[in-house]
């Protein structure tokens, strides 16, 4: 049946070898009162039927294959070169597991090493790990590193309100048992106001680049204040933006984390994505999760292996700083293949296309009566639009015309109701942008 290859004869031969009359006998240690319950579930389907059922579920969704998409807010629709998927579908990659046995896992190990190398280049940091679950959990793990760096003497964590709201929520979920003081996102509204919260109990300050409103800010001044208070500066950065804008290292970041999804990973309703984590050399031994290092085999041949293993849960158990085991290995591979194919020039070009198209859209929308575009800061591929009516009303009209509109910022920021976060990438040709502008004009009238 399905993927079980046994024939009747083989089953009999195997049972005879085991010395059990029936397969049921093998379960004698399971309490008999609870053994072999019925499962109230539908019967089996053929591959053909399964595919048809899932196709109909898939087609019930409004997706970027059918609609013009202007929504980002932490998940971005970029072009993924065809070869990325072909490489991910190599069975040698996706049907392997964690490379505990390096002699038969050099493919995975070297790919992770290359991934780490590329993330180091993008962020300007000294080292990167093999991945976390997503951008949100990378930020949560950065808090753990900052606490370790302070030897658990400091308990205050300052978060900018313009870090993705869900990242801030996840960070709080992770640390609810640790008696920490999360501040900043309830009151501070600028880098200067964040700096005012610094004291000798502050372990770290985290900001986003670009932030959730799309804004790009030079935070060198903040970095200086954070460092003189003896705290770490953590920057949550969109890696696609880093192909164009200065690296967080240039502004003094100590740890750079974020969502690697823009690097060749499809939207996929929110996952699987790729949490990346990079830091300065001083903190390498405090990073959670897997790290691959270079070494040699006994013949002196260059090879790769998981290293600094004694930090990890399977060895340190309750003394490990994180419980992470399985991470997002295949997604890190996707990013590595993507960055290799796009290369130095292609990634820059894609980032520039995002920038120019977003600015074209912003300029056109700013010219519409009733709309205002926030131009207080430079931006990358997202910007805030003040709308003449509710964002949901506007989006209802847009969807009728085949457009998925921007994100409703009022969902997360009370003071931003009627504000829409619009995202434009290289996937939006000019006629889509013009159509968006045209409909916004009609709706606003």
């Amino acid at each position: 049946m399905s993927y079980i290859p046994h024939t009747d004869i083989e089953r009999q031969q195997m049972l005879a070898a085991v010395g059990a009359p029936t397969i049921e006998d093998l379960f004698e240690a399971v309490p008999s009162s609870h053994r072999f319950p019925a499962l109230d579930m539908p019967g089996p389907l053929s591959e053909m039927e399964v595919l048809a059922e899932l196709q109909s579920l898939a087609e019930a969704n409004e997706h970027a294959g059918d609609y013009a998409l202007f929504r980002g807010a932490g998940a971005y629709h970029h072009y993924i070169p065809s070869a990325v998927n072909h490489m991910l579908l190599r069975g040698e990659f996706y049907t392997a597991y964690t490379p505990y046995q390096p002699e038969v896992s050099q493919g995975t190990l070297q790919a992770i090493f290359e991934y780490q190398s590329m993330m180091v280049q993008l962020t300007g940091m000294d080292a990167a790990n093999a991945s976390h679950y997503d951008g949100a959990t990378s930020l949560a793990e950065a808090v753990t590193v900052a606490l370790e760096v302070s030897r658990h003497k400091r308990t205050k964590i300052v978060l900018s309100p313009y870090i993705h709201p869900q990242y801030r929520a996840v960070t709080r979920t992770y640390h609810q048992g640790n008696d920490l003081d999360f501040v900043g996102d309830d009151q501070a509204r600028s880098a200067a106001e964040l700096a005012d919260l610094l004291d000798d109990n502050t372990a770290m300050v985290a900001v986003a680049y670009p932030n959730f409103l799309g804004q790009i800010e030079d935070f060198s001044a903040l970095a200086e204040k954070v460092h003189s208070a003896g705290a770490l500066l953590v920057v949550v950065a969109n890696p696609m933006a880093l192909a164009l804008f200065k690296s967080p290292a240039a502004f003094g970041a100590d740890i750079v984390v974020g969502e690697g999804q823009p690097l060749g990973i499809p939207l996929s309703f929110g996952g699987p994505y790729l949490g990346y984590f990079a830091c300065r050399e001083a903190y390498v031994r405090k990073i959670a999760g897997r790290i691959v290092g270079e070494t040699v085999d006994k013949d002196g041949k260059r090879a790769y292996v998981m290293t600094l293993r004694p930090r990890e849960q399977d060895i340190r158990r309750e003394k490990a700083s994180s419980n992470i085991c399985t991470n997002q290995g295949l997604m890190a591979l996707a990013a590595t293949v993507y960055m290799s194919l796009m290369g130095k020039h292609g990634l820059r070009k894609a980032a520039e296309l995002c920038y120019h198209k977003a600015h074209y859209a912003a300029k056109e929308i700013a010219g519409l009566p009733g709309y205002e575009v926030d131009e207080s800061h430079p931006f990358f591929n997202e910007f805030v639009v003040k709308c003449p009516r509710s964002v949901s009303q506007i989006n209802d009209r847009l969807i009728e015309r085949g457009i998925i509109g921007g994100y409703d910022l009022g969902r997360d920021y009370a003071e931003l109701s009627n504000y829409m976060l619009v995202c434009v990438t290289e996937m939006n040709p000019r006629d889509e942008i013009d159509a968006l502008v045209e409909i916004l004009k009609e709706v606003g009238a």
Partner: protein
Amino acid sequence: MTAPGKKTEPLIYEISVTGREGVKMPDCDVPETPLPDELIREEVGLPEVSELQAVRHFVNLSQLNHGIDTGFYPLGSCTMKYNPKVNEDVARLPGFAFLHPLTDDEGAQGALALMHQLQEWLAEISGFTAVSLQPAAGAQGELAGILMIRKYHLDRGDSERKTILIPNSAHGTNPATAAMAGMTVIELPSDDKGNVDLEALRAACAGDNAPTIAGMMITVPSTLGLFDSNILEINRIVHEAGGLMYMDGANMNSLLGIVKPGELGFDVMHYNLHKTFSTPHGGGGPGCGAVGVSETLKPFLPGPIVTIVEDTNDLEDAPLYGLHMPEKSIGRLKAFHGNFGMHNRAYAYIRTYGGDGLREVSRHAVLNANYVRVNLADDYHIPYNRYCAHEFVMEGHFEGVEGVHALDISKRLMDYGIHPPTNYFPLIVHEALLIEPTETEDKATLDEFISAMRKIAEEAKTNPELLTEAPHITPVKRLDEVRAAKQLVLCCRPEFLTAAAQAEG
């Protein structure tokens, strides 16, 4: 096995050529806006290779790997079963792959219906009331479970319960999780049958200890591959002390349709969808660590979960699904809705088997493990040699043969084209080799493995260097792991490569 005679591959940076372009991007079709120069960087040190160079590079790298698609992979506690190809197609359907996570609920009804159905099926299989698909991996499911237990006690106004009991056979993630959640761990010994030592458990839960017990984490069947015959009693003792029971569901591949953990009295467990339901392992993830809970913990589930917002009486009409945050939720564990790409694969897998088919999965996983166990019992010491579940543990050393260890047997197996079992885990078995064949392997493959293991046992006695020097045919031989940790090289920097090339040139 890895491709025969395969050579190692240069780094992608080493084949990079200055000025070479890979994938072409379209020209800009809108008027350009000047860049803010003070914020713009010069360039990023990424490789410059052609598409063919990149493809060959990654294909060559892939061939240095052993995967399920290339050979037997009996890695205990990881359930390395066949990953059906159609499930990969399912996850890549445009309606799933191009669906934005912040699509309004009305526009994501297909995805939400799928997640809702998967929640229901996972609840039915495990005997729990409700399921959250939020956790991204087993370890995150564990964190969810322990945070729920913590919050449940606090919600009752009880802040004294900070102890989590964990058997010494547990996965390392269990104690690490408890510590992450701010709990204290008490380790319990195992008895000579591999079960939890009941006397030690009773003592840990007795008298003044009882009010400090938050709960217990236990793997069922245990990491020794054994069903603990006292499981009902264990649940009773901990509950009587006021603690809750967490089941590590890493080994669910032996329990589908065999027993429902919820009916045994557990309060919460996590699944590993990448193990039990074959959403692939991906070379180390992504996974999904869905958690199931009893009625007691339902309000505390991590969210959002999918609920029916508006039911329908008409069978033809689908209900309206929506995302919902449980009332006392521990919160979000991830941005968005969990690893949806694992949800759709697991859905396809479960739908392919149906309820009775899933029972066959576990029956055959257990049959295969027992078949290998009895066939190796003459050549290896099997400390708990009774009916096992889907895996069993044996000792990787031989009487009278000094200097041959579990690691050497593992490395020698590579020369036979087989991935080694999990070694040195569980920690309570000397020179442990944990073997899990899974149900998708046929008898011929198991016989080949048995024969290889017997030959290796023979070689250990006649020519031990064959083992201690192994592997012999892999792309690289044993690595200097001490050097990797002492002389840290964690990335290759293009400027170093350039410098090295100039020095050589």
